[in-house]
């Protein structure tokens, strides 16, 4: 509403407001809609497919639900499999996120706010991790986890995921923590706190947006991860959602509607989560990609 009013008023009172909130050219909309359609159409197919019977899908793969069938979703939601896998995924993602944020901000704090010999070497040591392909490490990692007796244990997934997420976390957090003005540090030191005290009372609250960004990235990465859980969590009751989706589609190949319903329920949490945090993520990345 306000947009419409300001466009009308703007014509009279100056161009400034008008430019801030214009309707855009039709071409912009056509292109944007085409892009959005390509992005969303396959997802819509999966979600809508869950509302059809396998017979309907076989008869017309590209059709709409007619009539709408709710039983398939109900069947998945009332089974214990889906919920236990959601719980496992949630537990692992929460553990990973907590670990990444806690360890990452501490390391980034030292790298950003202390001057000591070997600081740049330590930073390089962490950035080197960006060059380590996680999938290449998975096979040797499996052997290490076997020696540590962490196979079929959530820690066997959480700890390596923390380790592999740390480099990007440090790279994003360090410039952010560096940008906190030195005057704040001086002032808090004069007021009698120590540097850890400064970290706890000033840095952590100020760094919250950046912490949310790295936290969301870690959460989504963990929520979606597949290869490591596939190797480590062999026991069926430990399976995470991606493993569950894959198992389900392998087990009930004939039940297309069931697969579609299960798949769309599995993607819902990450979708909601990310949509809510999208602006936060783009905002947090700005510091990192400034160059």
């Amino acid at each position, binding site marked *: 509403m306000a947009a419409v009013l300001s466009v009308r008023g703007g014509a009279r009172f100056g161009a400034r407001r008008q430019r801030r909130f214009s309707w855009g050219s039709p071409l912009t909309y056509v292109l944007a809609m085409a892009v959005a359609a390509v992005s969303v159409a396959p997802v819509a197919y999966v979600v809508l497919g869950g509302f059809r019977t396998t017979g309907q899908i076989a008869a017309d*793969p590209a059709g709409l639900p007619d009539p709408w069938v709710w039983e398939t979703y109900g069947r998945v939601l009332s089974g214990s499999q889906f919920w236990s896998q959601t719980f496992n995924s949630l537990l692992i993602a929460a553990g990973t996120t907590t670990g990444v944020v806690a360890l990452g901000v501490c390391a980034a704090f030292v790298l950003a706010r*202390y001057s000591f010999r070997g600081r740049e070497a330590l930073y390089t040591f962490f950035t080197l991790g960006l*060059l380590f*392909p996680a*999938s*290449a490490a998975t096979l*040797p*990692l499996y052997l*290490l986890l076997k020696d540590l007796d962490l196979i079929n244990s959530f820690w066997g997934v959480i700890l390596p995921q923390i380790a592999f997420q740390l480099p990007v976390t440090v790279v994003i957090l360090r410039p952010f923590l560096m940008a906190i003005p030195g005057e704040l540090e001086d002032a808090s030191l004069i007021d009698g706190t120590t540097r850890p005290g400064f970290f706890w009372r000033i840095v952590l609250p100020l760094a919250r947006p950046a912490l949310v960004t790295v936290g969301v990235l870690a959460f989504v990465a963990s929520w979606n991860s597949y290869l490591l859980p596939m190797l480590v969590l062999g026991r069926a009751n430990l399976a995470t959602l991606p493993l569950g989706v894959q198992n389900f589609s392998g087990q009930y190949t004939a039940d297309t509607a069931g697969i579609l319903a299960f798949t769309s329920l599995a993607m819902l949490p990450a979708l909601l989560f990310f949509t809510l945090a999208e602006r936060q993520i783009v905002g947090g990345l700005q510091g990192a990609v400034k160059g």
Partner: protein
Amino acid sequence: MTAIHSTVDPAGRAHARPAGPRPPSGGDGGRAGTDSAAAARAARNRRKWLEIVGFSAPATIVYAMFVLVPMAFAFYYSLFRWRGVGAPTDFRWFNNYKLAFEDPVFVDALTNNAIIVVGSLLIQGPLALGIALLLNRRFFGRSVFRALVFVPYVLAEVTVGIMWGLILVKGGELDTVLQSAGLGSWIRPWLADQDLVIWTLLGILTWKYLGFAIILFLAGLSNVPEELSEAAAIDGASWWQIQRHVTIPLLGPTIRIWMFLSIIGSLQVFDVIWVVSAASMRSLGASATMATYMVDNGFFARLWGYGNAIAMILFIISFTAGLLFQRFVLRRDIEGALTGRGRRAVKLRGGK
């Protein structure tokens, strides 16, 4: 459990510690040279190092333990013929590496990785740049379009794989849509044709990861000062001229960082390939990548020595590619991030 809690501890303990008066660190004024001043300085120094170690040790240990140590072991195991039972004893020098390059399937996997690296850069880069510029314009409903474009990137690789598997199956959604659009002659066995499958997979990967490039580019675009395009507009430049000569050059650092991440990601791609393409396609080499080849041979065929050799090859290729890229392409960007001086240089250069 312990690993996580030990990091919270230093901060918590520091919080509880009686906060004694402490001179600002900038004032290194103990020039009098008395013993007590020297002792205080030593104590301060000791404490500083204690803090440094306390803060950075947990991250360093976890990172070293689960990223670096396994790769060291991988090198050791890769020198043996070993099926994972007992300690490796059958030492074969670099025989596993030789075997890998003699296996045509592995060479196919390397080729496929190369196709994905180059294809991702050439297709995703320009496409994402165009979409990011489009979504950077101010128009009503922009944030909704932005959110929708990110959707594929958020989905789990497995979900994407199963989804596209069902869409592309013979007589599935895509074939039906093509048929009803009168393009029935375009229908192909998307995932069952040995020559076609890798290109189908490249298409799926493009669909999946385009959103990531767009996110990065949009973040970079929001850092481009608006005054510059306003000034250019006042000078009579068209929207397209502004993008071409002002905005895109300033986006250089972001584009280069994306290229870096895209190359590393393409070299180690696993999930989507694994889920979408049939095992038979992988074993023929039609759709295998280095990572799927590694898991197929190392984990499932229990050729642990051989699998670790593949892991090392994958690691060395990614590491070398990454280092070269950093050394020759990203260098000025990273300098800029560290010193703040290089950034101005890039801006000046880009502004020409």
